[in-house]
């Protein structure tokens, strides 16, 4: 079947199987920033924005995205580069595998929450896991990026 999406600002017609997950379709169409981590809706490395809201592409039928706007890290390179700068300065990056998912969720959080508390940041980001860092450096970077008090 075919679906029509606005992928990173471009009208895109995609050929999909009815049971295919959005993750596999996006990777097939060149969005390699979208990664497969757990495949059980737990880790968040597959996060993309659907109409601006973060969703888990490993658990979303691609057909559900028909007629909607999808944003991956490829479509937010400038914004994500700005956030990556904060990560670098806090030494908050190791393997980088979780970064695209984290960055997209943080972009959505920045739009949705004004002046979030640490608890709110943690709750919003609870669906993005990192196996490397322990989150401390990342949290510092996020707070500085959002301009909230430590």
């Amino acid at each position, binding site marked *: *079947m075919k679906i029509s999406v606005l992928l990173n600002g471009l009208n895109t017609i995609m050929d999909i*199987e*009815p*049971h295919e*997950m959005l993750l596999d379709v996006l990777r097939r169409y060149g969005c390699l920033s979208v990664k497969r981590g757990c495949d*059980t*809706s*737990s880790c*968040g490395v597959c*996060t993309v924005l*659907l109409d601006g*809201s*973060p*969703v*888990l592409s490993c*658990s*979303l*039928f691609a*057909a*559900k995205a*028909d007629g909607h706007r999808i944003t991956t890290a490829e479509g937010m390179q400038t914004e994500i580069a700005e956030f990556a700068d904060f990560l670098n300065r806090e030494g908050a990056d190791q393997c980088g595998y979780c970064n695209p998912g984290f960055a997209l*969720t943080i972009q*959505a*959080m920045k739009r949705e929450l004004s002046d979030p508390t640490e608890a709110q940041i943690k*709750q*919003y*980001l*609870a*669906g*993005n*896991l990192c196996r490397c860092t322990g989150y401390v450096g990342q949290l510092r970077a996020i707070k500085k990026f959002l301009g909230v008090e430590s």
Partner: protein
Amino acid sequence: MLTIAEYLKPQSIAEAYHLLKNKENSVIIGGGFFTRMSSRKIGAAIDLSDARLNEIRETEQAIEIGAMVNFSQLEKDTALIEYFDGIIPATVANLPGQQMRNMVSVGGTIYGKYGFSELLTVLMVLDCQVVLYQGGVMELTEFLNLKGKPQDILEKIIIKKENLKASYKMFRYSSGSLPILTVAVSEKNNQYKIAVGARPAMAALAIKTMEYLNSNEQTDDSPLKAAEIAAGELVFGVDRRASGEYRQELCKVLVKRAILEVNER
């Protein structure tokens, strides 16, 4: 491995029901979380995303929640924050990660009758009805007691607005895991409702416990005694997360805490 022959997105619940009845091996898709993890051969997947079931509506008497409302909408709704001690937004916030809350649907949660469903446990202690497209309006507890899953479509739930106090308690090993035990208590005019879920079976009302509290004067010992009755009357089983005995002990603690919290409000 899951296979789907045809993926359909009807524009109304009437159209969805027609497809459900006429397409061979058809399945309704809400959020799709558990469907996609199954190994089934589905003839027609009927996705309700475009069927206009994703609104929360407040009337004078009740709050109506469409079947395709997601947990993120529940979390932010001002009426739900105001009523029932804000127990619904507080409970759905436990689902880890904004992504999952953006995807999980109310209808999928209720129709699935999942034992670990925190929302279901909470709804059981409120005055909640379900509206099925063909089956009409029925009490939530009546729906949950139906054998199997009727070939019908859940359209919405209706929660009567009441001035009651409510508390929700749960235990899970980590924020990212499913709850091992869920407890909800509500109280209105000294009448209590108590529901316990993740037994690991679906949530059940603790009937004898409610009778004890509702027909006896409250003393300092009442919460503990009630918790012991609840732990004794309900059946707890074992799964990979916990034993029945562990769940029973948790029940004693969480029921007592929930009653105390409601009493203090």
